[in-house]
């Protein structure tokens, strides 16, 4: 049946090309009908009656239009059309659908002359009783399964394809990093973590905003403190999802024995409503006056060693409170989330 071919081809194309766009799916439907151009009883045959009538008079059904040679011809035409229109991948849906429809017909009792002009009929299994006949109950099963594949294909295309969905379902770090890299420049990226705190192994599952990716780990925050996966939290599963639109600005500050307070205040006042984190290494005059927040589960974002102060995603407000009246030399990178 024409509809079975259409659904099989559309489902296959959506899965193989990872698309849910109407144009390639429409081309898939068209490509799936082209094999039946060799009979005047088909829909496409009635539309293109002179062509189908001419073919019908000269060739058996399921021969010249059901072969790989026809697919190659279609592929060449699609390639040229796609190249001219700048949409090669989209136009590849046409030959792909054609070959899927022809291959599907191999599972019918009559088979197809897949290798025309070689006069052999390609069939799925040698026993004809194990093949389906057109219009029989088995075809409705095929139609139902193909419809499910089409729905799954469209859904998977919306979530990045089958492979991405498998990675996401399993919480693989590769996918989390890929999702982060794909979205971080334009939006917030959140981590849905299933895991435990490293100190007392109590449940740490929850939703955290990702500040940065470091290797295969993430610097994250719950709005109160900063944490690092693998260091503060043992992660069993980590899924990343894009959140609201957000702009991310990285600004470098070089300090040459300067008073830190006005520099940091200026940074705060010039970015109202933004969340700012500082990372870098500076040398200060009075390190003994700095009181780092220690203990707890959070990442140590400020460490003092002699005159050296190391900042690691240290919140700006906290830095202003801790580093006021200090004169500093060094460089700091400010991560500004707007």
């Amino acid at each position, binding site marked *: 049946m024409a509809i079975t071919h259409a659904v099989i081809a559309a489902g296959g194309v959506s899965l193989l090309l990872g698309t849910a766009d109407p144009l390639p799916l429409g081309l898939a439907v068209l490509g799936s009908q082209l094999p039946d151009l060799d009979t005047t*009883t088909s829909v496409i045959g009635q539309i293109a009656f002179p062509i189908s009538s001419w073919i*019908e008079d000269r060739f*058996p059904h*399921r*021969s010249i239009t059901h072969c790989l040679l026809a697919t190659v011809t279609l592929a060449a035409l699609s390639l040229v059309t796609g190249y001219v229109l700048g949409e090669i991948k989209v136009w590849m849906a046409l030959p792909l659908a054609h070959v899927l429809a022809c291959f599907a017909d191999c599972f019918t009792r009559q088979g197809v002359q897949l290798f025309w002009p070689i006069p052999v009929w390609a069939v799925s299994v040698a026993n004809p009783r194990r*093949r389906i006949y057109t219009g029989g109950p088995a075809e409705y099963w095929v139609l139902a399964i193909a419809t499910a594949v089409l729905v799954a294909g469209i859904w998977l295309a919306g979530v990045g394809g089958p492979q991405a969905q498998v*990675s996401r379902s399993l919480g693989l770090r590769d996918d989390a990093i890929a999702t982060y890299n794909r979205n971080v420049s334009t939006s917030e990226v959140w981590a849905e973590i299933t895991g435990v705190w490293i100190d007392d192994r109590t449940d740490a599952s929850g939703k955290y905003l990702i500040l940065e990716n470091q290797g295969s780990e993430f610097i994250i925050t719950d709005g109160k403190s900063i944490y690092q996966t693998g260091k503060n939290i043992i992660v069993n599963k980590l899924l990343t999802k894009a959140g609201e639109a957000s702009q991310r600005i990285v600004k470098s500050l070089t300090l040459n024995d300067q008073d830190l307070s006005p520099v940091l205040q200026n940074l705060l006042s010039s970015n109202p409503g933004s969340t700012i984190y500082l990372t870098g290494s500076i040398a200060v005059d009075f390190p003994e006056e700095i009181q780092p927040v220690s203990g707890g589960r959070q990442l140590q974002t400020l460490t003092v060693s002699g005159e050296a102060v190391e900042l690691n995603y240290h919140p700006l407000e906290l830095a202003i409170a801790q580093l006021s009246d200090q004169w500093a030399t060094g460089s700091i990178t400010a991560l500004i989330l707007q």
Partner: protein
Amino acid sequence: MIGDMPERLVKLYASEFAISTAIYKGSGKRFFNSIAEQLDIPTTEPRYNKDGECVGEKAMSMDVLKDEISDNIGPNTLLIFPEAKRLTTGVRYWLEDAISNGVKVICFAAANPGKDIFLEMLEIELELPSDKLIRETMQAEANRMGLNITRSRLAELQPLAGRNPMLARKVIRNERLGLNQKASPQHTQYVVVMPLVIACLMAFGVMRFIGMGTRNKGLYIFGGIALISGMTLKQVGQVRGARKRLGQ
């Protein structure tokens, strides 16, 4: 296709050889009689009474007939057998001697039986009849049976016949009885493409190795799952019921 080729061979070589063409139809004596008559070899012998006087003629026994033909054929004789697969063991052994005596023999068969005389013969495989000829055969059979059949239906039915004229006629007879709706092709001009499906599945195996080599866990796991799922479906497709029907 054999078609009218035996008749055409007879016409072609009529001036060069003494030709006989025969089809075995169950009776050895009739078969040899036919050969003998075409070669102008006597098929009767004198009948004698108790006193040794000739009182007429009687038909030769088959063994006598065989010997008589053997005595009268030679390098200038051409024997043509359009349905060579039917030839019985006795006929084939007789032909063995005939061939060794220089008699030219041409056998036509759908398949080479691959034994005794057929092993010694040169084999020429004839081309399949064209689609056009099969279509014409079907149309002619439909006309003969007074069946009005459209060109579209002929095109649909042709896959059931393959390139076999006998099946082409049978398909039309079945069509007349309405038996083609769920009919299975009986021709043997098919190729099973399941190995191609398996070969395509192996692409997921390749994907798995790429994932393993590039440390892409997603690709690795997806390739493995897809490959195993495909192979599982293939196994599920092999679920089968009874192979024989009641009484077989």
